[in-house]
């Protein structure tokens, strides 16, 4: 399974259904798959998904403030079926161990639409709430998964 952080409210299945019926996708969902150099950052989930919160936290701590963090989860077969190449590029988050789960997907415009379609059809979405994220950051620092300065950066204003 693969995970990509998104804003969840762009990925509701009921909203996407009229588009999927016409073999199309909502532009807002595609827009949420922001690439850099045609690469889309994704993360591998373990079979039991026990690393899900850690992966979402790894992405979230790179942002400007602690917030709710949305994500989509989808099967890696969606990537294979769309002919998308997956590159073993190690992540650059403050969680060094989590970075091993990072991958990049090499996308074209058509492949991005195919991926969005597969996620909306067969994937699922969720959010880690802000209150939980704050707990995760504290735990991460206590357990040595995150550097101490991360906690300082996110001190409640």
């Amino acid at each position, binding site marked *: 399974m693969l995970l990509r952080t998104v804003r969840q409210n762009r990925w509701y299945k*009921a909203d996407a259904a009229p588009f999927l019926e016409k073999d199309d996708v909502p532009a807002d969902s595609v827009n949420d798959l922001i690439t850099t150099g045609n690469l889309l950052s994704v993360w591998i989930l373990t079979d039991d998904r026990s690393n899900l919160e850690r992966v979402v936290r790894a992405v979230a701590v790179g*942002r400007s403030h602690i917030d*709710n*963090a949305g994500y989509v989860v989808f099967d890696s077969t969606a990537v294979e079926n769309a002919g998308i190449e997956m590159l073993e590029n190690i992540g650059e988050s403050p969680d060094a161990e989590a970075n091993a789960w990072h991958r990049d997907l090499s996308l074209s415009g058509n492949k991005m639409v195919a991926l969005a379609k597969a996620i909306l059809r067969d994937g699922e979405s969720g*959010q880690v709430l802000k209150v939980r994220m704050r707990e995760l950051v504290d735990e991460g620092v206590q357990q040595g998964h995150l550097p101490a300065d991360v906690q300082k950066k996110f001190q*409640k*204003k």
Partner: protein
Amino acid sequence: MSASTNPPEGTLRADKWNRIHTGAGTLMARIVLGAAMAATGPDGFLSPLGRRRNDQIIAESSTLAHEANPYLVQEIRKLFEQGAHEFFQDGVESNFSRKLLAILRHYGREAFQAIAEYLSSESTQPDVTSEALRWVADYNDKSTFNNRWNILHSSLYSSSPRVRDGAILGFAAIDDPRAIKLLREAKTSERIAELRVLIDHVVMQLERHR
């Protein structure tokens, strides 16, 4: 005046309106509100003690305070319209959020009244409203608690799922167990499966305080 207390750009007319509108009606409303709060204390004023429904009490208290400043409503409208050109991401500040916070800091309760007025009277861009609700909820200020609560509560029943998402997340940010009942009620009419799951998660979070 320090930089932090400077009015946000273009809001001077709203300040002027404030100076002019300190009439008898406003004064009377403030006296009534003050007396009610003084009689029970903020906790009693808000708490569901069986006298009246909690959400009813909160709704009445903020509408009683005074009418929204029309110039501030206009500024809020402008800000929200500008926000429609932005792409919002979780955990990332935007020009919209920075300007919104500046207005909230400068005008306090009046800004929340203007936002409530704007959201209730106009067809707004769902992405911007959803983003605004997250920031409104997160504004850590006891004196505007009722205003923020009311904005979130009415947004729970928006026709836009994205706005409802912002309202549910707003209640999660406020982290007050009194929202459990409201969220459970909203869930009964929620057609988006992901939002029903989100409500369950937020309720679980809020139940930890009980």
